[in-house]
C-alpha cells in the first residue's frame, strides 16, 4: 500500500497510448484474414477440415498478448510514473474533548462513542498510508498534549490509541492545530474530530508546506445537559440563596426531563428539590431553586435526566450532573492599579464601583484588604505575586513573572480565537485591529483566547478558584460605544472575572490551577484518589489539573506565617460547545498570509524501468519469431486464429 501511495503519474494523458489496444486486436483479426487463392481444383481440398467459425476464430495467439503487454507497458511509461521517494512526518490531532464522549450509533446497532469511532478512523487511516511515514499523536483536551514520542511508526500510534479515552474537558481545535503548525516539523496533519473544519487548506509552518486533512466522525445526536450553575444571593431573604440552574438541550424535539437538587453536607447527600421540565431544542432553560445559606462546606449536587424513552437519546450523561458550593459574597468594588491611579472610565460600567490605585499603594495592601475587591485590574503594572483575587493584567510590564511576555509586535494580524469562550462573546474579534500588541508565553494553567500570527495576545485561566486574564492590547480607557470592540471585550473580561468570584466557586473540567508554592498540598479527587504536592525545590508554583467532575478537596498544610487550609472546589463539565452534540460548529483552519511554496519532493522515475521491460519483451518476441517458437506453440487448427 505504501508503494501505491508514493506512486504518481506526471502525465496521465500519456496513458492514451493504451487506447491503441483495440486497434491491436483489430490488426490481429485483420492480420489473419482469409488469403484468397485460386487453385486448379477443390477435389482434394474438400477433404480437409474446414476453417472454424468466426466465434471460434476469435482466439488470439500468444504473440498478441505479448504485443498487447508491450503496448500497455509503453502506455504506462508514457504516463511517466514516478515514486515520490519521501516519507511524510504526520501529526495526528485527535479530538479528546467532552463532545467525543457522545454516543454514536454503530453499524451493528450498538452504541459506541465518537471517540471510539475516531480511534478506529485513525487506525484505518494510518494503515492506508505509506509505510515510510512517521507519526506523532496528539490529543486536544484538556490541552494539546503529545501522546507518543515524535515520529514513531504506525504500529506505535495504533498501540498508543487503545488506552486513550475522551476527557470531560473542552478543547480548542483551532488553537491546538495552530500550535502544531507553528512547530513547523510536520509535512501533514490529520485532524480527527466530531467537528468539521471550516475549510481545507495548505498552510505554512516555518516555511514548509503542510497538508491538513480532516476526518469527521459521529452524527448529530440529542443531548440534555446542564449549562451553568451558580448560587446567587437572594434579594428577598438574607438567609436564603438562589440556586440558578441553566439546563440546555441539543436536539430536534422537546424532551421531558427532571431536575433534582441534592445538598451534601459532610458525607450525607439529601434531595432538596426536584422539578419536572420540558427542555426545548437549542434553548437554555433557567431554573431557580431557593436554598438556605449553610456555609462554605456545603455543596449542592444538581442532576438532570430525561424521562421515559427520551433517556435513551441523551448522548452524553457526564454533563447531566453539576456541583456548586456556597460562598457568601457581598457587592465588592473593582480596583484599577496603574501608575496614574486612574479608573480609566470604568466607573461607567453599571453596578460596579471602581477605585483607582497606584502600584505603590497596592503593595501596601494586605491580602485581606485585597480580598475586599471583586476584581483587580493592573494597567501597565503587575505585582510580583498574583493576588488571590480575580485579576486582569492589561499590557503588563515585560519583566512581570505572572504572564511572561514573548515579544511586542506592531499591527499584528489576528489569526484565531476561541469563539466559544465567554471572553469572546458577542465580540467581532477581527474588528479589534490593535496597532500594537504584546505576545504572551502561555503558562500551563491558562489557555489562549485570542491569537495573532506570532502568538496569543489574550490569555485566561483559573487558579485556586480565582480567574486571571492577561490582555496584550490596549482596551482602556473605557469609552463605551465609541470603541465598541474594546468595550465589549472589557465587559466580557469583567463579567467573566466577576462571575468567577461572586457566584460560588465552580470550575470546569480541564481547567488548571496553580497552588501556592510555599506549602504542601494534598488534593483529594472526586474518584477518591489523592495526590500530594510537596513544596517545590525551585519555588515554582505547582499546577493542578482538574480532569474529573465533582468535588475536589484541597488541603494546604501549615506553612511559616500561614495556617493550614482546606478548600472545596466544585468542578463541572459545563461546556456549551461540547454539549451541543446535535449541531456541531466547525473549527477554523488557521489562515496564512504567505504564499504557498511547493517543496521539492525527491522522486524516482519509474518509466526507464518500464521501457527496459518493454525492450526485453521485444527482444524475446523477436527471438520467438526467428526460431518459429510461436509456430510450435500453436496447437491444432481449432485453437489457432
Amino acid at each position, binding site marked *: 500500500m505504501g508503494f501505491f501511495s508514493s506512486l504518481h503519474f506526471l502525465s496521465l494523458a500519456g496513458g492514451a497510448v493504451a487506447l491503441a489496444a483495440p486497434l491491436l486486436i483489430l490488426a490481429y483479426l485483420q492480420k489473419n*484474414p482469409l488469403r484468397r*487463392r485460386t487453385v*486448379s481444383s477443390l477435389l482434394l481440398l474438400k477433404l480437409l477440415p474446414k476453417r472454424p467459425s468466426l466465434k471460434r476464430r476469435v482466439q488470439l495467439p500468444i504473440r498478441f498478448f505479448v504485443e498487447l503487454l508491450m503496448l500497455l507497458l509503453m502506455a504506462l511509461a508514457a504516463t511517466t510514473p514516478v515514486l515520490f521517494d519521501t516519507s511524510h512526518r504526520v501529526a495526528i490531532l485527535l479530538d479528546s474533548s467532552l463532545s467525543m464522549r457522545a454516543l454514536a450509533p454503530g453499524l451493528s446497532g450498538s452504541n459506541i462513542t465518537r471517540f471510539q469511532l475516531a480511534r478506529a478512523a485513525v487506525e484505518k487511516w494510518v494503515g492506508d498510508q505509506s509505510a515510510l511515514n512517521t507519526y506523532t499523536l496528539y490529543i486536544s483536551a484538556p490541552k494539546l498534549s503529545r501522546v507518543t514520542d515524535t515520529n514513531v511508526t504506525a504500529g506505535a500510534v495504533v498501540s498508543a490509541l487503545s488506552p486513550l479515552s475522551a476527557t470531560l474537558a473542552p478543547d480548542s481545535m483551532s488553537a491546538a492545530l495552530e500550535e502544531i503548525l507553528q512547530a513547523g516539523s510536520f509535512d501533514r496533519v490529520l485532524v480527527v474530530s466530531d467537528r468539521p473544519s471550516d475549510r481545507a487548506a495548505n498552510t505554512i509552518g516555518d516555511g514548509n508546506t503542510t497538508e491538513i486533512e480532516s476526518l469527521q466522525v459521529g452524527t448529530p445526536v440529542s443531548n440534555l445537559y446542564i449549562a451553568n450553575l451558580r448560587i446567587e444571593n437572594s434579594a428577598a431573604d438574607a438567609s436564603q440563596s438562589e440556586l440558578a440552574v441553566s439546563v440546555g438541550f441539543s436536539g430536534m424535539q422537546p424532551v421531558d426531563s427532571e431536575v433534582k437538587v441534592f445538598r451534601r453536607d459532610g458525607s450525607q447527600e439529601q434531595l432538596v428539590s426536584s422539578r419536572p421540565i420540558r427542555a426545548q431544542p437549542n434553548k437554555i432553560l433557567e431554573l431557580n431553586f431557593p436554598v438556605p445559606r449553610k456555609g462554605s462546606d456545603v455543596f449542592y449536587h444538581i442532576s438532570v435526566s430525561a424521562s421515559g424513552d427520551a433517556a435513551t437519546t441523551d448522548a452524553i450523561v457526564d454533563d447531566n450532573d453539576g456541583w456548586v458550593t456556597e460562598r457568601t459574597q457581598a457587592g465588592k468594588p473593582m480596583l484599577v492599579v496603574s501608575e496614574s491611579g486612574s479608573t480609566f472610565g470604568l466607573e461607567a460600567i453599571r453596578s460596579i464601583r471602581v477605585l483607582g490605585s497606584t502600584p505603590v499603594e497596592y503593595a501596601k495592601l494586605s491580602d485581606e484588604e485585597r480580598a475586599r475587591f471583586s476584581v483587580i485590574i493592573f494597567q501597565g503594572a503587575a505585582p510580583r505575586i498574583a493576588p488571590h483575587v480575580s485579576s486582569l493584567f492589561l499590557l503588563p510590564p515585560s519583566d512581570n513573572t505572572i504572564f511572561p511576555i514573548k515579544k511586542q509586535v506592531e499591527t499584528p494580524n489576528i489569526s484565531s480565537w476561541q469563539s466559544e469562550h465567554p471572553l469572546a462573546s458577542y465580540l467581532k474579534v477581527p474588528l479589534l485591529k490593535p496597532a500594537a500588541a504584546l505576545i504572551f508565553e502561555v503558562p500551563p494553567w491558562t489557555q489562549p483566547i485570542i491569537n495573532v500570527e506570532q502568538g496569543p495576545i489574550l490569555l485566561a485561566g483559573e487558579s485556586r478558584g480565582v480567574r486571571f486574564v492577561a490582555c496584550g492590547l490596549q482596551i482602556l480607557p473605557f469609552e463605551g460605544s465609541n470603541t465598541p470592540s474594546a468595550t465589549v471585550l472589557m465587559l466580557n473580561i469583567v463579567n467573566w472575572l466577576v462571575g468567577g468570584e461572586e457566584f460560588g466557586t465552580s470550575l470546569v473540567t480541564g481547567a488548571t490551577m496553580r497552588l501556592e508554592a510555599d506549602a504542601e498540598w494534598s488534593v483529594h479527587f472526586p474518584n477518591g484518589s489523592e495526590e500530594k504536592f510537596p513544596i517545590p525545590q525551585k519555588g515554582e508554583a505547582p499546577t493542578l489539573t482538574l480532569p474529573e467532575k465533582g468535588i475536589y478537596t484541597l488541603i494546604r498544610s501549615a506553612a511559616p506565617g500561614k495556617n493550614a487550609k482546606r478548600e472545596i472546589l466544585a468542578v463541572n463539565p459545563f461546556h456549551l460547545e461540547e454539549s451541543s452534540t446535535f449541531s456541531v460548529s466547525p473549527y477554523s483552519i488557521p489562515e496564512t498570509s504567505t504564499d504557498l511554496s511547493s517543496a521539492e519532493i525527491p522522486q524516482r522515475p519509474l518509466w526507464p524501468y518500464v521501457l527496459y521491460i518493454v525492450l526485453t519483451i521485444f527482444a524475446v518476441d523477436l527471438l520467438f519469431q526467428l526460431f518459429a517458437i510461436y509456430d510450435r506453440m500453436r496447437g491444432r487448427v481449432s485453437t489457432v486464429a
Partner: protein
Amino acid sequence: MVEPFTPGFFRQLQQLKIHTRRSFLGSRQGIHQSSRRGHGLEFHDYRLYSPGDDFRHIDWNVYGRTDRLYVREFREEQDLNVFFLVDTSNSMRFPIDEGKFDLTRHLTLALGYVALSDGDTVSVAFLGQKVSPKFSGPSALPRLWNELRNISPRGTFDLRKEVRAALAQQKYAGKCFFISDFLTDIESTLECLDLVRAKNFDLTLLQVLSPSELQLDPNLSQVLVVDAESRETLELALDRSSRFEYAKALANHVEQLENYCRKASIAHVLISSAESVADVVLTKLPELRLLK
C-alpha cells in the same frame, strides 16, 4: 524458340524414339513397325504362295528344300500417329506462376519433335478448344510450336465430351499422350481413359502438378480457395495435420489412377511443374521406357 529448346536439346531429342507397346497401322510408311504385312524392308515371315503374289518374293531356297512354294513376307514399316490430348481448361493456369501449362506446352513440343524427327505424324487436341492439324516431318516443328504458343488454358468443359470429340477425328490409332493435372473426379477421368483405350491407342498419362499441388504451401494458414473452373469457394485453416491429410488424399487419388493404369497397361508419369522438360524427356521418360 524458347529455353530449353536449344539446338543441343533438339539434337538430343533426335536421338530419342517414342516407344509403343504394340504396332499400329500408320498412314504412310514410316519407321514404326505396323501391323500391316506388306512390302517393307524388314523380313517378317514365310507363307505359302497364293496365286497373285509377287513371284519375286518366292524364296527359291525354301522351294529347293521343301518342294513347296513359299513367299517371303515383309513387315510394313509405317509412321506412328502420335496424338496429344492436352488439357487446356482453366485449371491448368493455376496455381499462377508455377508453370504447369508451360511445362505441358514444352512436353508436347518436345515429344512432338521426337515424333516428327522419327517421321511420325503428330496432332494435338487442345481439349475444350481445338484440334490442331496433323504435322509430319521435322520441318513441321515451327508450325507445331506456333499452335502451342497460341493456346492458353481457359474455360471449363465436359472432359468426356471433349475427349470423345477429339478421338472421333483420329482415323488411326497410335500413341496417345494425355497431358493434364487429372485433378477431377476419378470416375470421369477413368471414363476418358476408357474412351482412349477403346480407340486402341497406346496411352501414356502425363500428370503435371505444381509444387503447391504436390505439397500445400507451408506459409498458408487461413485461406479461401477458389476453384479455377467452377469458382466454388472453400474456407480452409491449414496446419500440420491438414497438410498431412492433403498428402494422403493426393496419394490416394494418384494411386487410384495408377491402379487403373496398371491394370489397363497405361503408363502413368507424375511430373512436377518444377521439373525441367529436359529432365523429363531425356531422363525420366526413357527410364520409364516410354522413350528409347
